[in-house]
């Protein structure tokens, strides 16, 4: 324990005093500030003279004000935070000759990687929490709505999911920093994988879906084919942590959503009843709907870290 806490404290203070962190934090704080401000203005206008829905507060996070919503922002750029915090964690120390010095102190070798990972997760948590709090404060001022207890719980669940999502990328870049001796290579590899998994997988998903189950553009008659097409698309896009995250946070941040599916087939009677009884889901039900996504996201994060751990433990310490 003594080793972990020493490494943890050192890494944490390194993160908070580094220019890299300050720049990143300023950028992210600014963007989320602007996004939620726009969302707030937009909400305020559209709710003028209308009875306020129950979860106005959460809408701050998923309303697209100007360009994208807060949730989309985390989904797109959250990975970058994780990557920036981890891509040179091990290889820099190896190159500088400090790693060998640290592991020749009376600590277990895993303290180094555990301490680094935990410090990264803490930094991410502090970053996200403060940003969410700032946005909430902004929302209070703009909308004049106080979040209910359930709203706060939902935000908390959203926060935890987001922390795991970004930690996954931290774990991945940590893994690359162990694999690749060169800092530039590990940074490039992390960014390349980020772009591939976040942007190209969803593109590839539609291409693959159209190949497997062709649906012609005007037709749409064949409902079965359309559904199949979407199922394939969804399945493929699950390989992207971004769509996992979007799915996982979908019903959490938007209580009115009953499913994370894009397309729901309904008969006319069902549609009628759905419109009549449009009530938000209770939190437990919302969690239940996206439970598989949350579990997979957490599992991915843990697996990624476990691989880094193993590789680091068996690797020769010499460069």
């Amino acid at each position: 324990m003594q080793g972990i806490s020493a490494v943890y404290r050192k890494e944490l203070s390194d993160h908070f005093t580094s220019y890299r962190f300050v720049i990143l934090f300023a950028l992210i704080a600014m963007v989320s500030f602007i996004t939620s401000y726009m969302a707030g203005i937009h909400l305020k206008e559209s709710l003028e003279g209308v009875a306020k829905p129950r979860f106005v507060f959460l809408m701050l996070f998923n309303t697209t004000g100007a360009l994208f919503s807060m949730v989309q922002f985390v989904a797109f750029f959250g990975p970058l935070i994780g990557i920036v915090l981890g891509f040179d964690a091990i290889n820099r120390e190896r190159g500088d000759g400090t790693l060998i010095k640290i592991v020749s102190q009376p600590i277990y070798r895993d303290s180094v990687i555990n301490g680094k990972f935990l410090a990264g997760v803490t930094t991410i948590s502090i970053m996200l929490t403060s940003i969410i709090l700032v946005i909430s404060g902004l929302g209070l001022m703009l909308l004049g709505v106080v979040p209910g207890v359930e709203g706060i719980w939902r935000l908390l669940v959203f926060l935890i999911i987001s922390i795991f999502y970004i930690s996954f990328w931290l774990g991945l870049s940590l893994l690359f920093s162990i694999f690749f001796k060169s800092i530039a290579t590990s940074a490039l590899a992390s960014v390349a994988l980020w772009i591939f998994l976040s942007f190209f997988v969803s593109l590839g998903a539609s291409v693959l879906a159209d190949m497997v189950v062709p649906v012609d553009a005007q037709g749409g008659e064949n409902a079965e084919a359309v559904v199949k097409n979407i199922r394939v698309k969804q399945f493929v896009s699950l390989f992207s942590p971004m769509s996992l995250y979007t799915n996982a946070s979908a019903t959490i941040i938007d209580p009115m959503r009953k499913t994370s599916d894009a397309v729901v087939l309904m008969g006319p009677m069902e549609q009628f009843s759905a419109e009549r009884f449009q009530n938000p889901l209770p939190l437990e039900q919302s969690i239940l709907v996206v439970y598989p996504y949350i579990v997979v996201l957490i599992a991915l994060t843990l697996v990624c870290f476990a691989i880094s751990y193993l590789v680091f433990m068996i690797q020769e310490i010499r460069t």
Partner: protein
Amino acid sequence: MEDGKVIETTNLTKIYPHQTAVDNLSFSVKEAEIFGFLGPNGSGKTTTLLMLLGLTQPSAGSARICGIDPIRKARDVKRLVGYLPENVGFYQDMDAVQSLAYIADLNGMDRKTARAKIFEVLDTVELSGDPHKKVGTYSRGMKQRLGIAEVLLKNPRVMFLDEPTLGLDPDGALKLVDLIQSLNRDLNMSVLLSSHQLHQVQKISHRVGIMIKGNMVAEGPIDDLAREKFGLGGTEYGLEEIYMKYFQEV
């Protein structure tokens, strides 16, 4: 430990996929002795040091540091041994006190003891003049001395110094060698000194070992080795001649 040996290896072997780095190495270092660990580049000296620290698994054989097995109880061994790696690195934006404080932290020292000890070792290595200067601006000689300070911080029984004088100017190297000698004399510290600066090794070593291609080809006091190679009057030969003689024979 009863026999006064701080380091003892028996048939220590390390085989990498394409080469045998250390081949059936058996040698020992006595208490309060400076042992000159010589050998050409790539002869397996650093690998041996890493195995003695428990940082690399030997393929065969065993080692004991003060009676402790570094494979099973690496952490206990690392408490007793201070290791100064070749080309030791530092965190560039820390100062000497911060660097030492981190090492103290990793050794589980409490703040107060650490603080006193840090200034004590900085005094020993003559770096206490400007303790808040960033390590990034240090000269090579100062870095090596800071490295020694980090080693001394944990009160080691044994020091492993890997090429401590490499790349130092003559004056800096001389100071460092004197420092090592005084640590050995005043604190009874055993030193395993790996170096290519043979005249420096000759000056301070009680015994030397010459390692070539993973084997210890000679081990003992310099005079004994000289006699062995050059006959009875051989003591006038320096370590350099002895080393070359062994090297040419292999």
